[in-house]
């Protein structure tokens, strides 16, 4: 039995399709990522899975329980971290944690082992009001509260949005440890680079799943010939590449531009020659493997 099974879920808000006939399943103990921008439908999906919203059609099961009929039992089994900070700002760190433990009929002491690694980092501030914590500390407290009743499934809605690169890395290390303790984790993120940290990912855009697979399998499906191109003037480079004959897409990737061609015969020499003619300096052209973001953008264009 999969931890989460979703079949043909749709949901509309005043005529706009937030979720459009979505199906997937998540195995027990899997770390599963929903990768997509704001407005893709991630939060709507998570609100249905956490029994906070009814789907218009389709069925969704968590641990074999139906999200509509068995909602009370599901709520005992899941831990949920919403996208917005939803703890009590005017309660202290410790009071918040105690509150959540009590609501689920347990105590901090009983499940301390599970949250120890995370909570220990904010324990020195346990008397501080939750509203006065920094972003990274709020995130750790929210995760502790979501875990305190020992859920078997953890649902995290954009836990790393607006969080700096260092805190993001640490957060994913925490998730890996939780996964190793057997918890199933569904996590949403707008950061494409976090896809590689998941067992499997779903690329989501405009209420549809564009791809569901392991990160490696997703990148293998990229259909075109791809080059990574560098030159000193990145803005000029992007513009000139867009005018190169036969080019399919040109996207900036930090220090380099990724250029794709539908024609596999396109060679590096031609490209170098063209850029030299345009007066570029510091030119380098290498054939490149697509990453998740290349694939995401390709799928966006296709649909």
């Amino acid at each position: 039995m999969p931890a989460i099974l979703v079949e043909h879920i749709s949901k509309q808000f005043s005529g706009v399709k937030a979720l459009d006939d979505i199906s997937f399943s998540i195995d027990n103990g899997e770390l599963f990522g929903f990768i997509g921008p704001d407005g893709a439908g991630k939060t709507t999906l998570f609100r249905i899975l956490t029994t906070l919203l009814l789907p218009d059609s389709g069925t969704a099961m968590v641990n074999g329980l139906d999200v509509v009929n068995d909602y009370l039992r599901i709520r005992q089994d899941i831990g949920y971290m919403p996208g917005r900070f939803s703890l009590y700002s005017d309660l202290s760190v410790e009071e918040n944690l105690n509150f959540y433990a009590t609501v689920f009929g347990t105590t901090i002491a009983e499940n301390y082992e599970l949250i120890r690694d995370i909570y220990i980092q904010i324990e020195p501030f346990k008397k501080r009001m939750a509203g006065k914590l920094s972003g990274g500390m709020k995130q750790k407290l929210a995760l502790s509260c979501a875990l305190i009743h020992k859920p078997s499934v953890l649902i995290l809605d954009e836990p790393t949005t607006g969080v700096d690169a260092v805190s993001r890395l640490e957060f994913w290390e925490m998730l890996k440890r939780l996964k190793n303790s057997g918890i199933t984790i569904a996590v949403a993120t707008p950061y494409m680079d976090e896809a590689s940290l998941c067992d499997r990912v779903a690329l989501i855009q405009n209420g549809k799943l564009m791809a569901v697979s392991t990160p490696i399998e997703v990148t293998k499906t990229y259909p075109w010939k791809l080059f990574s191109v560098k030159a000193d003037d990145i803005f000029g480079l992007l513009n000139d590449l867009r005018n190169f004959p036969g080019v399919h897409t040109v996207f900036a990737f930090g220090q380099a531009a990724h250029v794709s061609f539908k024609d596999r015969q396109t060679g590096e020499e031609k490209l170098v020659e063209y850029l030299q003619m345009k007066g570029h300096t510091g030119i380098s052209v290498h054939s490149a493997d697509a990453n998740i973001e290349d694939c995401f953008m390709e799928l966006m264009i296709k649909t």
Partner: protein
Amino acid sequence: MYNPNAENIIVVKDLVKRFGSFIANDHLCFEVKKGEIFGFLGANGAGKTTAIKILCGLSYPTSGQLNVGGFDIYKEREKIKRNIGYMSQKFSLYDDLTVFENIRFYAGIYGMRRKVIEERAADLTEKLDMKEARDMLIRDIPLGWKQKLAFSVAIIHNPKIVFLDEPTGGVDPVTRRQFWDMIFKASREGITVFVTTHYMDEAEYCDRVSIMVDGKIAALDTPDNLKKHYGANSMNEVFLKLARIKIE
């Protein structure tokens, strides 16, 4: 574009901001050149927002000398406000006004004439490919459109400097790149861009990058020089090396 010989558009000397016993900005010193794209990076809570608020004339420093766009931060705050643009991820446009009403509102605040506003609005919606959305409420248009419109509105009065506070957070990858095309273009037209981001690939597009750690500027240079100096392959590695020290 960064030109070491260009005039300084922002000069910050010994900026200190305290909140009680907490020092949010600890003797910051830096200059921003006219027309450059200046990346202002740092971990959460490093003191970026505090500094930006002061630079925009929304908050006074505890001490230090600051000049923004040729105006003194203590005596000429209103002039500073008229000569800068500001856009943040969290708030930029009014949800319950239409696209056109938002343009009219912001342009009006900056004292543009009604006739000019009509022209600029037509021009702008055409360029952004949003002509048909002119009378739609902001809440009903996609996030990507909103962010592009918000940027255009932030520079509608042709400011000397535009401050962008995490402008691309949560935006889809294609729009994120289109947004940077707009930043490059504004910079080529002479507008100085002061930008914060958590996307480290975007740090690579900046002419120079400063990285704040614990209220201090821990590093400031071009992305290339920073990577060389810290023996890193990417700005992401540079950032992790600098910001991690704090945690250990």
